[in-house]
């Protein structure tokens, strides 16, 4: 169990073991990022961890070169500019003992305090060192080495005294393992200390919604949306929330907000289509379909819209033929909510027509009739 894995108190022996294996983990991480760079994956952001790894492994010149390349591309990102400054100044600014914020989660402050001398002897300190241990922790996490990831995150906190980063990383570690209450504890503490940290807020909103704390999730999403109306995922999550609350008007409003930023947003288009079908206004649906940038999606919606308007079966059939795969999705029941919005009489005739045209078998026709007509 993950909870046991991180709830177990930190032992001196494991800190010593970790310090002996940092170099090896660092070499493997370097190979990993070098390979990513070679493939162009995650470029240019991958330059950041790669450069930090090189810096902390003593290859300052090479690391500065990569960081300079990154800052040249992303000159507006404060984190990268700070890292470059730290690299140039030698990163000689470790946190003072009095500068450590209190972390209540798993009594981590007390645990760090207990091992302070050993940590001081075993690890680097400073802004970049903090980033370095966070990177090693994330790599350990992708390999499923949870305890090691946990220890690296705590070491990162010791190195740079960044409470928000520690709690976000631990929250994500617990979340990935399905330890939702632990994830909630870590992220709530992080959010209450740093409400301006949007990543914590967004992550926490997912945890809260999964825990069934819908009001709390909605509040968080509203706060994030206020500062980031240009984040379509946040607008869409609000649309989903209001749809689940049967508030069609608000759901539609947030769907439109998401689509304003990204008109090709698949989920937002899917939800908006359903919301408009519920409004029983064929003209509105028609206009919406007309404006969809994705031809395949527009083609699918046109079929259901034509069925709803009870257009001649032959023309709906012709439309259906143009969208391979949709028939199977309908048989699987994936469009049930939309199909049910079509009148029973029309549907009955249409199912029989599909059978006559040999698009579906008699067995499939009977199953469809039973399912939709009863």
């Amino acid at each position, binding site marked *: 169990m993950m909870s046991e894995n991180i709830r177990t108190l930190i032992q001196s022996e494991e800190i010593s073991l970790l310090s002996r294996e940092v170099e090896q983990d660092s070499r493997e991480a370097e190979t990993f990022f070098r390979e990513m760079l070679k493939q162009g994956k995650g470029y240019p952001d991958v330059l950041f961890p790669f450069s930090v790894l090189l810096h902390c492994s003593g290859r300052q010149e090479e690391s500065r070169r990569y960081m300079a390349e990154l800052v040249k591309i992303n000159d507006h990102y404060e984190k990268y500019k700070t890292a470059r400054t730290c690299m140039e100044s030698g990163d000689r600014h470790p946190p003072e003992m009095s500068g450590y914020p209190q972390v209540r989660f798993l009594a981590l402050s007390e645990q760090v305090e207990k091992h302070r001398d050993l940590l001081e002897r075993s690890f680097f300190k400073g802004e970049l060192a903090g980033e370095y241990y966070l990177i090693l922790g994330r790599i350990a996490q992708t390999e499923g080495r949870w305890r090691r990831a946990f220890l690296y995150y705590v070491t990162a906190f010791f190195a740079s005294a960044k409470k928000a980063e520690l709690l976000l990383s631990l929250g994500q570690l617990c979340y990935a393992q399905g330890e939702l209450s632990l994830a909630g504890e870590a992220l709530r503490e992080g959010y209450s200390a740093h409400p301006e940290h949007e990543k914590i807020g967004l992550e926490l909103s997912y945890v809260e919604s999964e825990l069934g704390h819908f009001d709390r999730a909605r509040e968080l999403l509203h706060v994030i949306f206020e500062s980031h109306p240009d984040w379509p995922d946040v607008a869409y999550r609000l649309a989903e929330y209001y749809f689940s609350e049967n508030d069609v008007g608000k759901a539609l409003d947030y769907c439109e907000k998401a689509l304003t930023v990204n008109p090709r947003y698949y989920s937002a288009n899917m939800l908006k289509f359903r919301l408009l079908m519920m409004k029983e206004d064929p003209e509105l649906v028609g206009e919406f379909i007309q404006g969809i940038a994705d031809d395949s999606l527009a083609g699918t919606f046109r079929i259901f819209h034509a069925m709803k308007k009870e257009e001649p079966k032959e023309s709906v059939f012709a439309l259906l033929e143009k969208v391979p795969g949709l028939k199977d999705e309908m048989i*699987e029941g994936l469009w049930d909510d939309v199909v049910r919005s079509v009148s029973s009489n029309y549907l009955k005739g249409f199912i029989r027509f599909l059978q006559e045209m040999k698009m579906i078998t008699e067995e499939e026709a009977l199953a469809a009739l039973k399912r939709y007509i009863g």
Partner: protein
Amino acid sequence: MSINDFQLTSMVRRVIVSLGLQTALLDISVINGVAYIKGKIERQDVAVMRIRRDYYYSEELIQEKLSHEYRSTLEALDRQIRIMPGIRGAVYKLKGWERRIGKGWVRIHGES
């Protein structure tokens, strides 16, 4: 209270995170109990990088090993989504992959 779409989307997202897939490359939602996942399936982890490193001499072998790795991930994803209470189906629109009835996950050539 029954599980609603808002909650189910979080659950689906968590499965995706737990499998090491990049959520930033995916559009994830649940509408009326049907999960929709669209975008690109990509894992940036040590296992995937090792394949590229260990079989650097043959692109064909790399693709074969990666396909095997990704197929297992997609099978786990689909299995875990379908057993969620409240989910009645899943639609995938994934670049380079298609789920076919009776055949499972099939790699579509010409798409990376």
